[in-house]
């Protein structure tokens, strides 16, 4: 009976339908598993743009220790990273380089805008060389306000990002 249904003409349609059914069946558990893996191994790129990097450094110091929340210290190559923490001011000279770094990273990738300068330009709103926020350069997932944010605030921002990833569709990038 199944043989009658599957003819050479409609085989691909049938396989597609079967795939849809399978996907629906295991989408949720599989997506959950994939997202679960992503949440606890966020690797930030080591791109220390401006003065907020001091507090980013303090966040990975022994007192705050962001590593216990699954965000690993910024070491290593950007080809293995999936998180950009934009630590402060992005100038006009830096903006193309930031986009270049973002484009070189593999999917999925997330962006945290840390500090007032990365969100709106902050204190440098009227400077001639500073971008009013990084929204025009790369898409942002989480905004962490402060000038500079305390390490606790950064950790909270990272946990918000984890919360967001948990609710994201994992299939988009598979």
């Amino acid at each position, binding site marked *: 009976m199944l043989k009658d249904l599957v003819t050479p003409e409609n085989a691909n349609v049938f396989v597609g339908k079967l795939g849809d059914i399978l996907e629906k069946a295991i989408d949720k558990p599989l997506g959950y598993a994939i997202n679960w893996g992503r949440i606890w191994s966020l690797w930030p790129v080591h791109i220390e743009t401006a003065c907020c990097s001091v507090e980013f450094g303090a966040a990975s110091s022994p007192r705050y220790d962001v590593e216990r929340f699954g965000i690993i210290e910024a070491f290593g190559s950007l080809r293995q990273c999936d998180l950009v923490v934009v630590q402060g001011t992005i*100038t*006009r*000279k830096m903006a193309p380089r930031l986009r270049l770094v973002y484009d070189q990273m593999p999917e999925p990738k997330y962006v945290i805008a840390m500090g007032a300068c990365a969100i709106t330009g902050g204190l440098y*709103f*009227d*400077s*001639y*060389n500073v971008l009013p926020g990084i929204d025009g350069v790369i898409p942002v997932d989480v905004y962490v306000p402060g000038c500079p944010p305390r390490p606790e605030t950064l950790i909270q921002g990272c946990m918000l990002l984890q919360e967001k990833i948990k609710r994201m569709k994992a299939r988009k990038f598979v």
Partner: protein
Amino acid sequence: MSTETENPSADAKPEIKTPPAKPAANKPEPTPVELPAFEKSISDKIVEKFGDKVEVAFVKEDRVRINVDKENVHDVAEFIRDGLNYDHVESVSGVDYPQDNEIEVVYHIGSYTDSSLARQILVLATRAPRETNPIPGNDATRLPTLRDVFYSVEFHEREVFEMFGVFFEGHPDNRRLLLPEDWADLPPLRKDFAIKGR
């Protein structure tokens, strides 16, 4: 007038010495007219060497300021290095004066080797003509470089070139330093460059 003429002649008498001291005590503010001696000796040496080519703008405690024309700035800088033992430039700052139509370049020169000059900063200022429509590098806003006298001005002069458009003749490396590579506006620290919203 008569008391003043008597004073140097009758220097031994204490009675005549007291009257000029009293008005000085009455108005305590203008008393520090006397210049600090060591700083005065530095400016005197330069004036002795160059005469009216240099102008001593002020002699304050630890700071001496000399204004020079741009034709003589190289010679004066060489004398400062060889004759006065100053050995490095701390900062080169441009100041824009649109009302005078000039851009001032100020060198702050210090000394590490001579311990008597450790506190001192010699301020050497010179002025370049200012263009209303500047083409950095191709207009009359030019100054001779001091890089062959003080090696430490190299990056500072590059910064002044891009921030004010002052081209330093003889500088080996007049390139852009801090601004973006595609900067096509006025040099940003000139007064006619207005920042947004102000």
